[in-house]
């Protein structure tokens, strides 16, 4: 009985905060647009019989017919994958340096990684607009040093989106990799060198495989939110940046087409469920390895 009560807590949480909202969104995606409040039909006011008979998959068929949507999905996937990879390239050396730093320095370094979260995410993205714009700090600095003669166009391009995503999500990459590297026994590297490895071979054959779980965890933590990212592409990206989060926003607020927006969200969730399941299996396997 007690055990049942204990399990009930997380399930109630899941039900209230995930399943019920999802059912509502899914129901709206099966509805039709209407000039009403709320802006869709049918609602339960119409009675049970008409309510269920009026639901259909029209909106999903619409998503498949217009290539804007699937191009947005593919583009989002590509941007999320590339930026996850770039975040790994940036985050791994930082995590490695942190794990190798003297013991007394580590809490400070950890603090510095987490520090940006103390200010508003929106303000930090706006700050990047100030850095990357034509008259921004970066261009002024490069012009002053003489590296370039005309200002670079970075803001409102995909490059700016990549920079924004890497900047925002790199702590999520650093922390799990740092945790993995921090636990790594230094004598393993010495053993590898003793057995004939060069420094680089020892890194490749021992350090990388033993931080694999951290790399996987960090990559999912970056990839999953980056896929549905809305703020960064809409503030830093240009008209050519096609991301599903942006499309969803426009359907919802500009077109006030809640049913189509909901259908977009349902598909996005289905796409995300695959990496989420993979991520959880990785976590589980890691826990089993440690047991």
């Amino acid at each position: 009985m007690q055990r049942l009560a204990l399990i009930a807590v997380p399930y109630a949480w899941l039900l209230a905060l995930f399943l019920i909202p999802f059912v509502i969104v899914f129901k709206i995606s099966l509805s039709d647009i209407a000039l009403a409040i709320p802006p869709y039909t049918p609602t339960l006011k119409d009675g049970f019989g008409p309510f269920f008979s009026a639901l259909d998959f029209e909106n999903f068929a619409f998503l498949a017919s217009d290539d804007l949507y699937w191009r947005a999905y593919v583009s989002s996937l590509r941007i999320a994958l590339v930026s996850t990879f770039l975040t790994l390239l940036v985050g791994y050396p930082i995590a490695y340096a942190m794990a190798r730093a003297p013991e007394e320095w580590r809490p400070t370094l950890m603090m510095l990684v987490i520090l940006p979260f103390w200010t508003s995410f929106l303000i930090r993205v706006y700050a990047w607009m100030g850095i990357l714009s034509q008259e921004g700090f970066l261009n002024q600095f490069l012009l002053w040093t003489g590296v370039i003669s005309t200002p670079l166009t970075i803001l409102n391009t995909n490059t700016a989106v990549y920079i924004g995503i890497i900047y925002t999500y790199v702590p999520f990459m650093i922390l799990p990799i740092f945790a993995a590297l921090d636990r790594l026994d230094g004598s393993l590297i010495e053993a590898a060198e003793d057995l004939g490895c060069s420094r680089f071979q020892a890194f490749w054959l021992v350090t990388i495989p033993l931080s694999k779980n951290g790399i996987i965890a960090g990559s999912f933590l970056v990839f999953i939110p980056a896929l549905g990212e809305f703020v960064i592409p809409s503030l830093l990206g240009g008209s050519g940046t096609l991301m599903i989060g942006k499309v969803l926003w426009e359907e919802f607020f500009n077109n006030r087409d809640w049913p189509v927006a909901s259908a977009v969200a349902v598909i996005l969730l289905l796409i995300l469920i695959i990496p989420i399941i993979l991520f959880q299996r990785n976590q589980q396997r890691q826990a089993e390895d440690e047991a």
Partner: protein
Amino acid sequence: MTQTVFAPWDDPSKKPLIRFDCVTKRFGDFVAIDDLSLDIFEQEFFALLGPSGCGKTTMMRMLAGFEAPTEGKIELAGQDIAPVPPNKRAVNMMFQSYALFPHLSVYENIAFGLRRGDMPKNDIDDRVGEMLKLTRLEKFARRKPHQISGGQRQRVALARSLAKAPKLLLLDEPLGALDAKLRQATQFELMDIQEKTGTTFVIVTHDQEEAMTVASRVAVMDEGRVIQVATPERIYEAPNSVYVADFIGDVNIIKGTAKPSGSDRYEILHTDGQPPFSAVSETSFSEGQTCHLAIRPEKVSISADRTADADNAVQGKVLDIAYLGNLSTYYVELPGGQVIKAQTANTRRVSRRGFTWEDSVWLSWTATAGVLLAE
């Protein structure tokens, strides 16, 4: 048939495999190794013995290449090894923590070093098979390190460090993580493997019993210096200093002043008003020089009556008895207040023990039983 005794250190024509030549190692202000010179010969099983912090692990790490000497040089087979990085040295190390790669199977752990060279695949397979057989691990080749026991892990670590057939194998507290029974069995296994492979072993340990059991020679270290290098028998029977005598085994140290009484015989005046002890010593002492008589407890016999023909006999009172099962150590207080330990084998049941607390007993030992040490 004459059996030749393995003692290359007594043969001046033999070249040592390893030579520490006035090696000093400092970490900042801390002197870990202090102007140390030492020769280790081929096929030796050499033990570095000392308390923690005496520099024995630093010496091993210098041999492996993880630390460089601050001064002096280390030669391996006549060549200075300072410029050779660890991955190019014909030296392998078995780590205290074993340092097995957790993501690789037992087989892959052993093959790890072999795969770094340009050895053909078949030869690697043969060599790993040979190592698995030597360490009796054939059944566990496919397992991961966390799926085998501590003793098996220890053998994997040994097999891995032997796989490349190094000229020199370094063992850092190899048996530290094993329980007492397994440690004893493994000590003999190590000696057996050392003999079979003919590899030179250098073992670091703080366990004197382990060093005595396995090693052909033992170096007793303290504060970055080697105090004595000798065979286990010499270390035990003829320590060169009070430090060594005290570090190895149990010992009675009687401080006194020497008075020559023959060619190599001395009388030791220890307590006012008590008859002097007599001892034989190869090293000479001048009259009135401070000396320490070191006698092992098992060389002191205990009896109810005075033994007639003993060189030294002294009466005392049993203060305490330490019963160890096979042995008993009697703590006997002499009239001057000095406490001497005497050890006897318990050949009879304890209920039939001859002496008990507060009994008056006689202790006796011969003049050659102890060693006379200056400091």
